[in-house]
């Protein structure tokens, strides 16, 4: 736990200011090296052969013609990967099973989605590699497929895995199913709760699968030596996780695998698992040359980890003066080809913004023939909270209550027992609701066909294993090494903390993200944890340095420990000692480091606990064109609790980015499958993410309710911003049209159809 002397009392006060990020110059000049920017001499180009069928038994694979093509140096298939026994491991904020990981990386018995890897080649050029794929003969036995989650749950649905039995139900089933798991949380007595309700609203919602939409495709470059030492550069949110997965899948010692996380062009949870990395290593091992692999945009859409489509049933009851007395929900989430949808966090977060006595939420994790889902920013929560926030709004309307007042009346606060278990510490939901209430936005009148919606959102955030080091160089500059890839400004925030902790100027701190050989295990960048945990580890590292320097001073000044203290960037003599000794800065000690005991440094190795939930409230105004169903977002405000904003501009950036992802999810983004189970919109043309002209400025209000378990009061902020937009926009649509839309996306054909059905489609 940190010393009291942090946060500005060391003579600096960078935390909370808008410094220029240390990695920024390289990013604005094109010098920064992202995954596909790395090359090694003699490298081969790797490409993947992917199943054209959404569901098929792989009867045989003949690679002989590909292997004979001049320029082809290695071909791999399922035969190059040993099978893995069943073992669940954390993957981002979700869990994965190694038996599934090895099959997702390279299909074994079956191809379970269009795009599923079936073989891979490494060749001396991209053109030869592409040609070689066409020479691989795969015999498929095409099977019926199923995509939709409700369809996949039917007893007569095509079965993906004959060894998958529904967990979490009694009695244990003896027939396999596509339902991997049933989960449930219960608080109080739901039936008694509904009996007390004066008003009940019950609705069913449906959301389509969406993709994280990072602009940088997956990329990996691997080189394997004859003794099995492996070096890998890849774009990832978690290079230690990549190392662990690759070592396991390929039978390598973890210590022999060195993974460097390149700069990463977006992840949002989608780069927390492995796709190309084990393939690149396996090819390099076989070819005895470095192998570089980059996904095309089509491959990213078809074969990485988009999130679940879902069906959600919500029933809420309230008394006539607005107390929520009962909340029920049943969630059915697509997991994709292998189990592990984020239904569990979806279940846990559904009612988490509210203080309720009676809650019951059930969730089903269901496999179907689409790519295995990966995390997407607060995984699971946007879907369940979209449904609940929509129903909360309907309750407000039925009760004749203001939607913000209704939320304030029921807001979770410090001490609230969350339905998913713990008693909540201090949280800032009320503060965000009040902040929104005070805005000019909330108080601006609207015109016809314009609507206003509000919604709140909750995400827990995580801590986890983190290592970070600080080294004082001979000239007094400080080298900072962190172990979580920097997705969006982390190095700036961590440098500010280090500068404040040690009392050195910000530009004397140089941060890098270390490779896996340089630091102990770091959990990945995700769960809104990198600034939270990284800063905690740095505070510990700084504490070690300060303690060390005080000890050295004691020797130099012949003083006792209580006669020296570190403050304002220097070790200072106290009391009598002050008469014979002068304060010494870090730079002063750096000059004599060797003579006083050796190089100066600190190494924080922690399992960060105490991550505090971040709550937010979003407000949106939109306008509907009643003749075409097109929606224009007019105005958007985000208020969210950051605990303590280390770098306010990057905190605002998280709010704004998450809000716009939510706008896309609500209005236009969806995976469109044909009846043949194939993806029809595997590109940015028809997978419609918001462009600059689609959105207005996003007003960001940073609320700070300190997290008492972090030395600076920090809460993770990265994920909560994507949670409220879906509900806020649906609520604004209802306000504009009088129609409650329960199906996302609310695209123009759907909106126009609904308007016309009610005779509303004409100006």
């Amino acid at each position, binding site marked *: 736990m940190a010393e009291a002397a942090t946060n500005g009392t060391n003579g600096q006060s960078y935390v909370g200011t808008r410094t220029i990020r240390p990695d920024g110059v390289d990013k604005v000049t094109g010098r920064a090296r992202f995954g596909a920017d790395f090359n090694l001499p003699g490298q081969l180009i790797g490409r993947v052969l992917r199943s054209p069928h959404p569901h098929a038994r792989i009867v045989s694979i003949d690679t002989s013609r590909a292997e004979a093509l001049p320029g082809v140096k290695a071909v791999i298939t399922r035969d190059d990967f040993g099978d893995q026994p069943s073992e669940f491991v954390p993957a981002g904020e979700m869990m994965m099973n190694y038996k599934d990981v090895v099959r997702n990386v390279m299909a074994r018995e079956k191809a379970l989605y269009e795009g599923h890897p079936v073989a891979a080649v490494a060749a001396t050029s991209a053109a030869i590699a592409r040609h070689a794929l066409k020479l691989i003969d795969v015999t498929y036995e095409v099977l019926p497929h199923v995509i939709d989650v409700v369809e996949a749950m039917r007893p007569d649905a095509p079965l993906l895995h004959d060894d998958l039995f529904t967990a979490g139900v009694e009695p244990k089933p003896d027939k396999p199913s596509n339902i991997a798991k049933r989960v449930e949380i219960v608080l109080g007595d739901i039936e008694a709760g509904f009996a007390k309700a004066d008003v009940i609203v019950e609705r069913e919602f449906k959301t389509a699968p969406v993709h994280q939409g990072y602009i940088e495709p997956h990329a990996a470059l691997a080189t394997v030596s004859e003794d099995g030492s492996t070096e890998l550069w890849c774009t990832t949110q978690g290079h230690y996780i990549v190392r662990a997965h690759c070592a396991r899948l390929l039978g390598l010692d973890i210590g022999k695998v060195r993974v460097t996380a390149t700069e990463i062009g977006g992840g949002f949870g989608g780069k927390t698992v492995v796709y190309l990395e084990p393939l690149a290593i396996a090819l390099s091992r076989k070819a005895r040359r470095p192998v570089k692999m980059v996904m095309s945009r089509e491959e990213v859409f078809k074969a990485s980890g988009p999130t679940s489509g879902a069906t959600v049933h919500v029933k809420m009851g309230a008394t006539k003066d607005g107390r929520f007395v009962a909340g029920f929900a049943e969630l059915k989430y697509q997991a994709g080809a292998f189990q592990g949808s984020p239904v569990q966090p979806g279940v846990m977060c559904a009612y988490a913004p509210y203080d309720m006595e009676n809650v019951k939420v059930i969730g089903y994790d269901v496999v179907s023939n689409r790519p295995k889902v990966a995390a997407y920013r607060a995984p699971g929560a946007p879907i369940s909270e979209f449904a609940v926030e929509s129903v909360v709004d309907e309750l407000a309307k039925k009760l004749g209550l203001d939607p913000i007042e209704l939320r304030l009346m029921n807001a979770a606060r410090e001490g609230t027992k969350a339905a998913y278990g713990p008693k909540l510490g201090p949280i800032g939901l009320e503060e965000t609701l009040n902040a929104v209430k005070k805005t000019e936005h909330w108080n601006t009148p609207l015109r016809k066909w314009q609507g206003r919606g509000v919604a709140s959102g909750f995400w827990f955030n995580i801590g986890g294993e983190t290592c970070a080091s600080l080294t004082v160089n001979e000239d007094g500059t400080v080298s900072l090494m962190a172990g979580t890839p920097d997705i969006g400004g982390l190095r700036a925030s961590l440098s500010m903390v280090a500068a404040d902790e040690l009392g050195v100027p910000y530009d004397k701190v140089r941060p890098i993200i270390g490779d896996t050989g340089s630091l102990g295990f770091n959990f990945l960048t995700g769960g809104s944890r990198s600034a939270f945990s990284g800063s905690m580890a740095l505070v510990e590292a700084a504490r070690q340095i300060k303690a060390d320097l005080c000890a050295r001073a004691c020797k130099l000044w012949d003083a006792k420990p209580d006669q020296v203290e570190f403050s304002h960037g220097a070790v200072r003599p106290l009391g009598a000692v002050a008469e014979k000794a002068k304060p010494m800065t870090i730079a002063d000690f750096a000059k004599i480091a060797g003579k006083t005991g050796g190089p100066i440094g600190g190494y924080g190795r922690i399992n960060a606990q105490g991550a505090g939930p971040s709550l937010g409230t979003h407000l949106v105004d939109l306008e509907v064109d009643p003749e*075409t169903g*097109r929606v224009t977002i007019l105005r958007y405000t985000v208020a969210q609790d950051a605990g303590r904003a280390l770098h306010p501009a990057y905190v605002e950036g998280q709010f704004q980015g998450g809000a716009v992802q939510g706008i896309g999810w609500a209005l236009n983004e969806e995976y469109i499958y044909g009846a043949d189970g194939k993806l*029809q919109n595997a590109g940015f043309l*028809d997978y419609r993410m918001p*462009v600059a*002209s*689609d959105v207005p400025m996003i007003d960001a209000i940073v609320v700070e309710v300190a997290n008492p378990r972090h030395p600076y009061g920090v809460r993770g902020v990265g994920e909560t911003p994507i949670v409220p937009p879906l509900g806020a926009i649906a609520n604004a649509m209802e306000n504009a049209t009088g129609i409650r839309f329960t199906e996302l996306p609310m695209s*123009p054909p759907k909106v126009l159809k609904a308007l016309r059905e009610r005779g509303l*489609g004409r100006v």
Partner: protein
Amino acid sequence: MRYEAPETLGAAVALLAGATGDARVLAGGTDLLVQMRADVVEPELIIDIKRIAETRTVTEDRGGWRIGAAVTGAELKEHPRLKQVWPGVVEAANLIGSTQVQGRATLGGNLCNGSPAADSVPALIAAAAIATLAGPQGRRDLPVEDVMLGPRQLALGKGEIVVSFWLPPRPPRSSDAYLRFIPRTEMDIAVVGAGVSVTVDGAGAIAAARVSLGAVAPRVLLVPEAAQAIVGSRLDRAAQDRLEAAARAACRPIDDKRGTTEFRIQVAGVLARRAALIALDRARTS
């Protein structure tokens, strides 16, 4: 894969006519390169026509305007006078894709790509534009509405290249407009496109009109009934309703990932009306 950049039209025609495998004309490349990348086409020969001066110029011709088939949308927008005479044609060309795409995309390519959702084609058809083709048998002219026969099907013979478009002379009090429906504000392929050109008489009534609809049939449509519905009127509500009905009646759209049949038909009427109103307003103030 061969790439040739002939300097004369004759050389280009000879290359195209003499090609034994799949040969493609390259102007802006904003469709061809995408299709090559997606393995939809694998040409043996690419013929880049951008060095042929005639395809790259905008000149006045017999009172009208002649626009080279390889003039980019951005260049059309920068032309000092064209957008005053044909604002609909210019705005249509500048709705294709993004700023970057408009820096390369051409009217010739947009037509010859053969998509019924092409943005510039309804505006050209409403303008009564004539395409000039050059081929092994010499030159010929074809109204733009007769060039695209269906998706990726053109009325061009082997070796024929679209060289330029002729926009006829404008009577006074004439203007045009192009509108399209897309779900976002930019970047999407038109779900419905409507081009309208009108000429107004001295009394302010519509003396002549042409209405063209895109993305609602296997080819871009010229809809004479929609034009007839508004000729003689001042586009009062009754005329607008007739226009919408005629536009809708002409549609034979598909259901696809961009829009349903029902949606396209409904919106076609709305856009025809809105484009006509803009064209009329422009014509009155021109």
